[in-house]
């Protein structure tokens, strides 16, 4: 476990270094947006990790309710924490990208809004966990919320998207246009893999920490 986690950590570090090098060194300066477009190499991977993390919460929650194994609960708990951090990062990166491109820190762009809704939703999930003293009950309630929240994600996505696009022209600027030069696509992919490794590293570390906390409680 410890060695697996260490290997994951080094792989993530290596991937991030590679991703940085490609993002700043290899990928070309984008013609219309200029230098700031490079933030996409952070924004898109963090958004991907956020969705991945909440997907893991969903699966782990179902496994917990079916099997009642503490391990599943720890995975859900850890993944939700990491997911909230990455949603926060996505929103921050989106804002920084938005300032020079849209001229404002925040716009109710469909994707940004969806991610912001997820951010508050899973922040609530962590709040709920923190407010229940008995671990078993906390795990059970959190699992139910983890399932409902995940089922809500597609609904949030569609409703926010329609809300922004129906009865008005589609937004002018779409980050990551469909025709992406191969270099940019490759850079993006490297970063997505690197951040996924980072996510796995964080989750394994956090799961281990939660396990030790529980052991200390029972001892």
């Amino acid at each position: 476990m410890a060695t697996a986690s260490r290997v994951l950590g080094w792989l993530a570090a290596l991937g991030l270094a590679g991703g940085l090098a490609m993002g700043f060194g290899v990928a070309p300066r984008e013609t219309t947006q200029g230098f700031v477009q490079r933030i996409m190499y952070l924004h898109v991977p963090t958004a991907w990790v956020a969705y991945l993390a909440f997907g893991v919460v969903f699966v782990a929650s179902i496994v917990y309710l079916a099997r009642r194994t503490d391990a599943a609960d720890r995975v859900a708990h850890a993944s939700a924490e990491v997911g909230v951090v990455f949603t926060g990062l996505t929103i921050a990166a989106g804002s920084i990208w938005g300032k020079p491109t849209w001229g404002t820190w925040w716009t109710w762009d469909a994707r940004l809004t969806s991610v912001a809704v997820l951010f508050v939703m899973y922040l609530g999930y962590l709040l709920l966990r923190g407010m229940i003293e008995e671990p078993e009950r906390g795990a059970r309630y959190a699992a139910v919320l983890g399932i409902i929240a995940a089922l809500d994600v597609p609904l949030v996505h569609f409703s926010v998207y329609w809300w922004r696009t129906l009865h008005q022209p589609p937004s002018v600027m779409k980050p990551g246009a469909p025709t992406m030069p191969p270099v940019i696509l490759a850079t993006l992919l490297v970063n997505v893999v690197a951040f996924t490794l980072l996510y796995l590293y964080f989750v394994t570390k956090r799961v281990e920490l939660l396990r030790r906390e529980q052991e200390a409680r029972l001892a």
Partner: protein
Amino acid sequence: MTADPLIRVTGLTKVFGNALILDGVTIEVKAGEAVALLGANGAGKTTLLKVLATITRPTRGSATVAGHDCVRDAEGVRRHVGLIAHGSYLYEDLTAIENLRFWSAFAGRDARDAALQAALTDVELDAFADERVRSFSAGMKRRLALARVAMLEPTVLLLDEPFSALDQRARKWLEEYLGSFKDRGGAVMMATHSFSRDLQITDRVAILAAGKIALDTPRSAVSPDELRRLYALHTEDLA
């Protein structure tokens, strides 16, 4: 009777947060038998009853009621168990008969007024059938709570200080009810603080101290004074 015990608890451990409430409790109650659980406040009596009633899940160990596992087959356990706990399980804004009608209907049972009235007559509350529970005294509420449990016809009774707040007549009724309940092959586990009168309907006495069974003996084997001495001995260990 040589059949399997109706209540079987093996190596039961319960941890709440940092606190060890039950620490490897093992105890059995056979059909037609009543066991008294003695112990100081916080010794784990209520927790043990709650695990058996499937309200609380054990951390380790197992508990079965009438052959049903309290964790894996909680619904099976619930068909057998009647619980008198600290809460009366009554709605204050409903009348006595409305309370019985609701719990009877919610259990999917016959809820005709004749049966409900009879249940109220048993505990001498028939004259108060249409009064709201909010206006009842503590003793009346306890009697109605007993009528509610009796109406659901359990085979195992878990009682947490059932005699508290009862006057002499109600106490007598409960003693008679428990007697005939045992005769019909029911099993009783009763948490109590009393050393004398409450114990009369019990066949065995167990002392729970610091989450462990410190003593488990037939009631006839110990005199009340002897029991008091043993109780003091074990509960002082706690300090």
